[in-house]
């Protein structure tokens, strides 16, 4: 608390909707807080009483395994009660709107709604309609802020930058289906704010030129940028979101953008390989790479827990 008063910083956000709205200082504060939660997951009693008596609702309108589990576990480790709600099989399938569903849940005395929805902007709309905190767990093609944050925590830990979370001099390539990826957007906003150089790589059908407006370098040739990058974030090809034909064949995509062992050998020897999961093994990433020494994929999952604990803890402390 004394440190906080010294530089006058206070976490100001009641909701976590995206990294676009956060300042560099907000991001650094959240990641530093996440580091403080690391020990909780490794000791014998994996629980702290920080959110005892609070209620967190997982409201998921879209399939999810690790994000849902990660939020559930994060809330449990803070001693909050967790209510699991799914879009399917709930009254939403009887025609209730998102806002009505949320208001009804809120009426049960809820403190945080963690929301995943297939429409971009759903979390922001929810935040405007309810009195409790809202944490965006992915909204359409817009943002997935906790994924962006856990990616940055992983990068900071593996490159020894956890002191000030200063990413100046770091080059990060985000490869694959940029157009449909909320993970890419959250990463871009966050990484740029921490000072990293971001290269977006993908076929032109999945990498619209408009992304250059986000102050990123664009490339359609992975082999060309490969020797320059410190971090490779391989995105999943979202077959379910791609309508029509984005590339001639999966095989052609693999040939040009798949991260194979042979391709990895041409990158810097200590290049960090990440993937938000779930992986299409053999498509955007080969098993040998995903399970190899450069891969931080399982660390990402572990870091996700700390980041989500920090997010739930911080939004809970800001009164409406």
């Amino acid at each position: 608390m004394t440190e906080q008063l010294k530089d006058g910083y206070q976490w100001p956000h009641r909701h976590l909707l995206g990294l676009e709205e956060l300042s560099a200082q907000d991001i650094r504060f959240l990641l530093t807080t996440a580091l403080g939660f690391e020990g909780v997951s490794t000791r014998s009693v994996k629980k702290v009483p920080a959110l005892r008596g609070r209620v967190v609702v997982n409201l998921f309108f879209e399939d999810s395994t690790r994000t849902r589990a990660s939020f559930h576990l994060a809330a449990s480790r803070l001693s909050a009660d967790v209510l699991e709600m799914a879009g399917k099989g709930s009254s939403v399938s009887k025609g209730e709107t998102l806002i009505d569903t949320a208001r009804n849940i809120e009426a049960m005395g809820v403190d945080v709604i963690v929301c995943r929805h297939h429409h971009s902007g759903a979390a922001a709309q929810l935040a405007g309609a309810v009195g409790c905190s809202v944490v965006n767990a992915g909204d359409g093609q817009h943002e997935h802020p906790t994924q962006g944050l856990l990616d940055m925590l992983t990068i900071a830990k593996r490159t020894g930058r956890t002191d000030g979370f200063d990413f100046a001099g770091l080059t990060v390539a985000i490869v694959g289906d940029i157009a449909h990826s909320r993970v890419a957007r959250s990463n871009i906003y966050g990484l740029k704010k921490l000072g990293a150089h971001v290269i977006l790589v993908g076929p032109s059908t999945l990498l619209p030129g408009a992304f250059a407006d986000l102050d990123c370098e664009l490339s359609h040739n992975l082999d060309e940028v490969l020797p320059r990058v410190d971090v490779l974030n391989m995105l999943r090809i979202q077959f379910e979101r791609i309508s029509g034909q984005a590339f001639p064949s999966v095989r052609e995509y693999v040939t040009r953008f798949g991260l194979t062992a042979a391709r990895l050998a041409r990158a810097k020897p200590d290049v960090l390989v990440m993937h938000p999961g779930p992986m299409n093994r053999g498509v955007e990433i080969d098993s040998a790479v995903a399970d190899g020494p450069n891969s931080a994929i399982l660390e990402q999952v572990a870091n996700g827990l700390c980041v989500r604990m920090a997010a739930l803890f911080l939004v809970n402390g800001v009164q409406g």
Partner: protein
Amino acid sequence: MRVLADSDRLQGLIDSLCGGIDRVITSKTTQNDTSEGWALVGVRSRGDVLAQRIAEKLGPDRFDGRVGTLDITLYRDDLSEIGPHPVVRTTEIDFPIDGLNIVLVDDVLMTGRSVKAALQSLMDLGRPRRVWLCVLVDRGGRELPIAPDFVGFDLSAGSAAALSPGEQVQVMLTPTDDRDAVMVFTQNEQEGANLD
């Protein structure tokens, strides 16, 4: 504001704490309790500095290198009342605490709520054999049944240097602060920044 202890006096207080701890450890180990291990755990964000100073003075062998830091932010019972969030930092106890004698170190003891939080936090890390409480300043004003085992400076009601109710104690310790001192503020001088 008035200064209750300058740097020389404060070093004297730390020395007396060290003497007290040293005597207890010695008496315990001469009672054929050589199997007992000791550890020093400081509570952020002044207790950790104090613990380091005590460890330096007594020598790391006294605790077999077991000196740790406890962050109690997540265990505080006033999280929802203090509004803006305090900074969560890491607990750094890299040794198993089961079966150890743990000397818990804090700078100022007042309500006892920080100590309660620290005890709760310690118990979640394992099962120590016994926890001892060492504080540089006992300010008095307890709200929980907690009593220190080692006290440097007694300012509680009834002591020779008892404070008046509105006064707040602040401990400054190098290297975190620029000097060593124990100071007293009246409430008007300092807007409630000092929590226990």
